């Protein structure tokens, strides 16, 4: 197999995704410092954009997508389960939270937690089914895509509960800090930092070892005693909880959600592009991708439908020329300069 192909297999292949974080040191500082730097950098954004309500809305959405990308990274980047229902799981969080708070009348915090739990269990169930039936990447992708499309249709079909096409206007929290200009941004930033912390700790724990083992060679991992099935389901539970919580939090800060807020084209495709750009399986790749594409999105806003053309072109170019993403590519560039020849990686078995 050619070098190019091999690199791709490493980047997005079935059992061999990522391959970016081999040489990480185990000290806690190496985890906390990057997260702290990201948090500080992002915390400065309102100083710059804080005057504009519109721009703060964009920034909150950007952070929400960073959360989605981290959640998707836990599921796909760590264990190679192609969940094409990122939007739908976030939608369970968003709509679940909205219905629980507005229609049922629960407190907002409780609504968010319950909706998070619902999303987590749904994702866990999907993963459990996929693992039990030993569906490969593609069938997992198709089943979850089917779930996502069904969810979208369900939102439209159950118009009395969800508001259908017109959307759901959330009354709860309308006169609290959730709808002010700047506080929602810091709330969302806190969620991002929380997710990064959880993901970072996961990667360093025995979870991380199991994830890497089963990503590099599933059969070998299984033989070495890693319970592949169980770790897949755990990853789906955790990642889906992140998606649900991000969706619910976003819903309460935005005040109005519609099926397109959580649509396949609007969420899943964008998250895949962000993650592919930043680097699948890396800690900060999702953040880099989300920030970059939030800016790209703003720049392209006047182009209307042409935005789709740009996104499509970027998807094609990214996967053709930069299949591992920016962070791993930069990382291996510096690594190569430090210790060449670069023979430090075991050859990847073909899928």
């Amino acid at each position: 197999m050619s070098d190019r192909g091999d690199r791709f297999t490493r980047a997005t292949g079935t059992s061999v995704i990522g391959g970016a974080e081999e040489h990480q040191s185990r000290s806690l500082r190496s985890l906390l410092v990057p997260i702290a730097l990201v948090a500080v950098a992002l915390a400065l954004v309102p100083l710059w954009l804080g005057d504009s309500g519109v721009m703060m809305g964009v920034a909150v959405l950007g952070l929400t997508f960073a959360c989605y990308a981290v959640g998707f990274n836990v599921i796909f980047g760590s264990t190679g389960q192609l969940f094409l229902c990122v939007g739908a799981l976030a939608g369970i969080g968003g709509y679940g939270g909205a219905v629980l708070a507005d229609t049922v009348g629960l407190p907002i915090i409780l609504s968010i937690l319950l909706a998070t739990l619902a999303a987590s269990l749904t994702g866990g169930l999907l993963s459990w089914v996929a693992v039990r039936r030993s569906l490969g990447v593609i069938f997992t992708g198709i089943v979850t895509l089917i779930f996502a499309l069904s969810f979208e249709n369900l939102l439209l079909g159950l118009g009395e509960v969800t508001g259908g096409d017109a959307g759901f206007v959330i009354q709860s929290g309308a006169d609290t800090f959730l709808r002010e200009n700047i506080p929602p941004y810091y709330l969302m930033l806190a969620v991002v930092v929380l997710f990064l912390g959880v993901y970072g700790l996961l990667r360093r724990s025995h979870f991380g070892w199991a994830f890497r083992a089963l990503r590099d060679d599933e059969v070998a991992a299984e033989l070495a005693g890693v319970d592949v099935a169980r770790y897949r389901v755990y990853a789906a539970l955790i990642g889906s909880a992140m998606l649900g919580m991000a969706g619910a939090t976003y819903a309460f800060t935005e005040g109005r959600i519609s099926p397109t807020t959580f649509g396949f084209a609007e969420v899943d495709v964008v998250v895949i592009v962000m993650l592919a750009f930043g680097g699948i399986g890396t800690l900060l790749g999702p953040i880099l991708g989300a920030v970059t594409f939030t800016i790209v999105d703003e720049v392209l806003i006047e182009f209307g439908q042409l935005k789709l053309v740009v996104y499509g072109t970027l998807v094609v170019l990214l996967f053709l020329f930069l299949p591992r993403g920016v962070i791993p590519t930069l990382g291996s560039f510096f690594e190569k300069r430090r210790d060449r020849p670069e023979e430090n990686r075991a050859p990847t078995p073909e899928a």
Partner: protein
Amino acid sequence: MTAQILDGIVFGLQLGLLASGLTLVYGLGGVLNLAYGQMAVISAMVVLFAMDAGISLWPAVGLGLLAGGLLGLFLDLTILRPVYRLRGEARVLLSLLLTLGVAFIVDGFLNWRFPLNSLSLHVGGGAVEIFGVPMRRGSLVASAITLVAFAALFVFFRYTTLGRAVRSVIEDEEGARLVGIDPRRMLRLILVLSGVLAAVVAMTRSMVAPVDVQSGFSITVFALIVTVVGGLGSVPGALLAGVILGIVNSIAATHIGTFLSLIILLGAAAVTILIRPSGLLGVKE
């Protein structure tokens, strides 16, 4: 009820032919073409523009078919080249992501430039009564064309050397290579064929209902559902699944409503994957 079953068969035949193109490409090359619906839409737009430019029906239809075939060839020669260097699931995954990108480029461009365009081919003449149900002549012509296309596929795969060569690659790629068949060339041929099939479906569909610029993604989803239920790589499976799901869709749409009927189709595909991953008539791996 009879009316809905007949409508369902008309739709189902088209679904089956649509899925045949997708399922052959997947079965032969492990390539999942998510820009498939956009190929159909582009072909329909070519016919529309040709007829607007004053070209008469048959040459316009010919141009549409040509456009479908060329699109398949184009994909094969450009973005699928790196895909062919991979194997197994990595190949399916890269093909899926790249063609999804292509689908967005096409959708974005068409929606930006021609958001209101749609193709409707009108078939003249009054309704024809079948089993006591008046059927529109367009539906009948569309179904007849679809059946002829299926017959042509059948003859091609059964009786021509080329068709048998394609089948041999689907069954055993290594074996085919050993007897001197080049799988890459067969795949190129099938991609062109799938483009032509997409064009045929776009045109027959436009005799029953308008095919608009926005329909690309839903065409792909329908083709994917039928492909999964019928079995990856199986044309008879696509035909069978298409007709069954067409009838189910027609009955459900009347009695339950459009949104929920799509959920039923999606559910059928999900259940098939879970119970019988190889599909109704697919080859067990």
